[in-house]
């Protein structure tokens, strides 16, 4: 999906109007292994770009998930509570983490597009 933007910490973000959907990339879920727990923020919380917004725990490790763009949390993916495995099976779709009401649209534009992110992955792996 070409409308996704990516961070160096392997989060993706998609804009629906002024709402940003944030999750972790396929590469991130592959590196983590089976996800067993996801801790999500409270709805209504405001996070700045790059600030910790969630924690994802796998059989190997626990990692922070950072807000790819700043904004107010308007919705969290409740289904990850009962079925954290969705993060592995559909990381950029049903495995989304949070929806943020974006305040600074230009933060989105600073992120990597798919081609740049793929090149970044090739460089680090």
């Amino acid at each position, binding site marked *: 999906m070409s409308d996704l933007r990516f961070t160096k910490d392997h989060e993706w973000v998609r804009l629906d109007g002024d709402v940003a959907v944030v999750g972790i990339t396929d590469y991130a879920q592959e590196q983590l292994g*089976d996800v*067993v*727990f996801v801790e999500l923020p409270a709805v209504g919380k405001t996070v700045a770009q790059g600030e910790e917004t969630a924690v994802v*725990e796998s*059989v*190997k*490790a626990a*990692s922070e998930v950072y807000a790819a763009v700043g904004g107010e949390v308007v919705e969290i993916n409740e289904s990850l509570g009962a079925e*954290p*495995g969705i993060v592995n099976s559909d990381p950029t779709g049903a495995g989304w983490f949070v929806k943020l009401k974006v305040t600074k649209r230009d933060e989105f534009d600073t992120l990597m597009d798919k081609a740049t992110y793929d090149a970044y992955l090739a460089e680090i792996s």
Partner: protein
Amino acid sequence: MSERGITTEHRALMLEEPLIFEQGAEGRTGVDLPRPQTDDDRLGGVARRGPIGLPGLSEPQVVRHFTRLSQKNYAIDMGLYPLGSCTMKHNPRLNERLARLPGLADIHPLQPESTVQGGLELIDRLAHWLKTLTGMPAVAMSPAAGAHGELCGLMTIRAALEDRGDTRARVLVPESAHGTNPATATLCGYSVSAVPANRNGRIDLAALETALSADVAALMLTNPNTCGLFEDDILAVADAVHTAGAFVYVDGANFNALVGRVRPGDLGADAMHINLHKTFSTPHGGGGPGSGPVVLSEELAPYAPLPWVVHDDAGFRLVEHGDGKELGRMKAFHGQMGMFVRALAYMMSHGADGLRQVADDAVLNANYLLARLSDVLTPAYPGSCMHECLFDDEFLKGTGVTTLDFAKALIDAGYHPMTMYFPLVVQGALLMEPTESESKDSLDRFIETTRALAQRARDGDAAWFHACPQFAPRRRLDETSAARKPVLRWRPPDKDAAA
């Protein structure tokens, strides 16, 4: 008949062992208790009416159960235990003999001080050794384990800062740190900022200087660090932290690499916990218990928790009330007495020169592993290591074998696996700490086994790895289900459902 066609489920001497609750039967007992002579229980009607659900077994059944379980275990007494970041070293039998002396084993913390002078002297003597070996003026003996010691150290730092009227909000922790460091800081009410490592696996001094501010209470630093590397810049690091008005908390988990060679007090430490179960050979894993005395600087010493031992012309006594600056108690009584006995036995049986050799041999053994495995595994960082050696999973790239598979294969080869996937900063980490306990022969056997496994992975035998372990009491466990749907307690089968 069972799947294997054998009714017992046993395979030779590998015995299938049900839970003790599954073996119990109602009305069976291992003891013949006298019948109560009166029905008058004097419990005022609160006596339990229903059964309490204890399993009914005879004494031989109980003995067999626990003996069989113990035989499924892998222990330092059975072979090399290369678990990194844990220091699984030999627990000398001399320690155990001394800890069982009635004068040390059968005393109680509430006895009059005049009847436990020897016990108090032992605590005082051990405190003296710990202060001498670390070059620090004070020590709090009561913390019950490493993380408890961290909490004690950080609480003294917080108290000292508050006394100065200098409330600070942040604690810095290197990104390779053990998880207890940020957890401790958080428990103490601080927010945690991670300090990145440089490409040599050490703390990035420039990044540290940038992160330091008037808001930083302390840096928590493990040295040697969790990558098994000595923090070369430690003097500059401590200077920078002190210049910023903050404290240096040293995580002493890896003091076993330095003892007798380097005194953390000389490196700028303000507080450091010492894991007696790592550096000083008290039992570790499976119950210990741990023990984590904390050495403190002159400035932090007034805040040490109660109680402490002092000695004057009248003998040894416990100070149980301070002048109000101290933290109060962090634990009932004075600490892990049984561990104090073992640690002091270890120190006195080795002597100062022997302790130095312990550190030397631990570092030598780890470097021997590193040197002899470097051409088949991939070291995470260049250069030599301290007490443990760290590899990444680059050598497994393209083989279809993961660090986890490699660890499971080691089980089949008769070894407890190394630490894996930790520290998190290293991709697919394999962390090995042989300790000084191992002879060259035993290291050579482990090296040959590990080299053979690496060769097998390169030869493309991924399917064999995926099937490991084949000879353990259980095959590959479903770690995902265990984490997602843990079954944390046994429940009696539902009789109605069974009927």
